[in-house]
């Protein structure tokens, strides 16, 4: 909004308005109206109004979603068994049970995804920023761009084609994790890359000047400096995949039981729990379970974001 230093005077063909001042607007506006640059002031007000309007417009869906989900789901979170029980032997028109199986399942599946995707993603970014030159680096960078544009259902189908069709294995939680890895890697590579680029070159040079080898410099200086940013990126990636449903529909059928084996059998997750109960939305029991699970999922993502902020805050490098 700092247009003051730019082109002085009504030079850009705008005829100055000669209406005498007074009669409208607040005192501040009036004073500016006296100014030969009042057109600019009007533009400023218009821009402000448009901006606030756009902001309000953008907030509507967010507030709407949150109030709906909270209003319909919050009483489930207070029920005695929600955080401890599962849905075993609870049919779609039965009340009761909990979502512990799905919460644990979601965390486990995303945990496995993180475990695989984070090292690959960070190392790719380190390569791209610290080592990569020429054709290979450009090719990798290009591939990461393509990967980030892949729709989640395509990632799911790809893993289905590899794991189920080619290797003849059954659907499993792990297969879904692999599909999520494909979605998570580009997020982590891109965010880590940006963070590494922000590390001042002087730090690297100072390290080299002390005779420190390059790899030690990368590990102890560059990664250390960018740590908080990297963590933020990782958590963004986690948040990105946590509510992902399409690959789960294809790869990880839901179970209402506690199930911690990622490699065999069906696997409980919150998005699939929502999907299951969505089918019986007309039944009050299923509907409240669905809203409860939706709120739980939102809270889980929120919690991770908060943890990310806290971690980033306490690890910011002091200037």
């Amino acid at each position, binding site marked *: 909004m700092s247009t003051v230093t730019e082109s002085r005077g009504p030079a850009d063909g705008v005829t100055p308005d000669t209406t005498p001042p007074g009669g409208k607007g607040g005192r501040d506006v009036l004073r500016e109206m006296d100014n030969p640059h009042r057109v600019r002031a009007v533009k400023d007000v218009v821009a402000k109004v448009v901006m606030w309007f756009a902001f309000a417009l953008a907030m509507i869906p967010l507030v709407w979603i949150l109030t709906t989900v909270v209003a319909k789901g919050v009483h489930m979170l207070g029920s005695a068994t929600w955080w401890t029980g599962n849905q*075993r032997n609870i*049919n779609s028109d039965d009340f009761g049970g909990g979502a512990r199986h799905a919460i644990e399942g979601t965390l486990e599946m995303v945990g496995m995804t993180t475990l695989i995707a984070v090292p690959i993603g960070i190392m790719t970014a380190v390569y791209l920023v610290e080592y990569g030159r020429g054709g290979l680096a450009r090719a990798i960078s290009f591939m990461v761009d393509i990967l980030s544009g892949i729709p989640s259902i395509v990632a799911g189908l790809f893993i289905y084609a590899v794991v189920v069709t080619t290797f003849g294995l*059954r659907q499993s939680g792990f297969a879904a994790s692999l599909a999520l890895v494909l979605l998570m890697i580009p997020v982590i590579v891109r965010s880590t890359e940006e963070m590494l680029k922000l590390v001042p070159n002087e730090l690297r040079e100072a390290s080299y000047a002390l005779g420190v080898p390059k790899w030690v410099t990368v590990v102890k200086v560059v990664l250390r400096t960018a740590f908080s940013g990297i963590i933020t990126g990782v958590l963004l990636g986690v948040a990105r995949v946590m509510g992902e449903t399409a690959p789960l529909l294809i790869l990880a059928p839901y179970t209402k039981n506690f199930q911690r084996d990622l490699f065999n059998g069906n696997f409980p997750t919150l998005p699939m729990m929502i999907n299951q109960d969505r089918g019986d939305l007309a039944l009050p029991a299923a509907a409240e379970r669905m809203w409860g699970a939706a709120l739980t999922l939102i809270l889980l993502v929120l919690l991770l974001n908060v943890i990310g902020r806290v971690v980033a805050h306490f690890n910011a490098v002091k200037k």
Partner: protein
Amino acid sequence: MSVSRISALAAIALSGALALSACASENNGAQPGAGSTGAGGTSAGAGDCFSGDLKAEGSSAQKNAIDEAIKAYQTACADATIDYQPTGSGAGIKQFIAKQVDFAGSDSSLKTKPKDGVIESDAAKQACGSEAWNLPMVTGPIAIAYNVKGVDKLVLNAEVAAKIFDGKITTWNDPAIAALNKGVTLPSTPIKVFFRSDESGTTENFTKYLKAAAPGAWSYETGKKWTGKGEGKEKSAGVATATKGQDGGITYVELSYAQQNQLPMAQIDTGAGPVELTAESAGKTVATAEQTGTGNDLALKIDYATKEAGAYPIVLVTYEIVCSKYADAETGKKVKAFLKSFASDETQKGLEAKGYAPLPAEVAAKVKTAVDAIS
């Protein structure tokens, strides 16, 4: 520096906790209800309990029934886990052929004629390495459920139903409907037909009924995909929910869903007077069905054009499609144990409250024999 080092450690611990919680909890078998990992051991109650899990997928028409059966079995057998995905008969059979599930639920028996270049029964046989059997397990009456303000009782016959679902009759006060409903005030609300957009055995059985009982009025092919008019909704719950929310709506849906959603159901005039949909009237139709499978393959052919007094003609028999001999003997034992419980008189009787009709006695006896022969 030391402070920031400590907080770095804390950070790593925090971020790692997410990943590690998974590994940690795997060793923690003492969680209540963690059934899938426990060692064998049969609990009191039902005869055969297995430990471990069983995967099934298919017809949403039998979801409420199999959910009940699973609940009954799992209650008796704490170490057993059975998952049923109600994704539709077509999807269930495909998953069974792709060896993704241990048995499939389907509203129609495996096709013995080629469809899209695949003969289902042959493909299933190949996947099993043995004959695949169709075992009728539940009778699911199909209701013609409607939602018209002020109309609590409605009589339809096959011809009028066919014309409604073909979009030829478009308002509720059409003379053809009025002729069957003397004394009922019908509004001029437009008729809104909802059909199943997914591949469904319910659609197949309903269109079979229309074709058999009103050949003149229903000219389409019968099949899992809807060929008539209307608006598509996903799964049984989808059409039931849509009808409930639309004045003037009508759909075909399993009795259990119509009951759950408290939708009124049309009586069917087969020529022997209007018949209300009850477990008993539906059972009468199934009892007259003819077995088309051989030996323990119990595929049935229903006479939809039945004119027997008191028989409700739109029924579907939902099958469990199983391998006669499983490549993995352990899986065979599990399937056998569960289906034995499913076919038992107690479980079957309990299904009545959920909107299903128990199998007629002679069919039930054959099913029990077949289940015993699974290995």
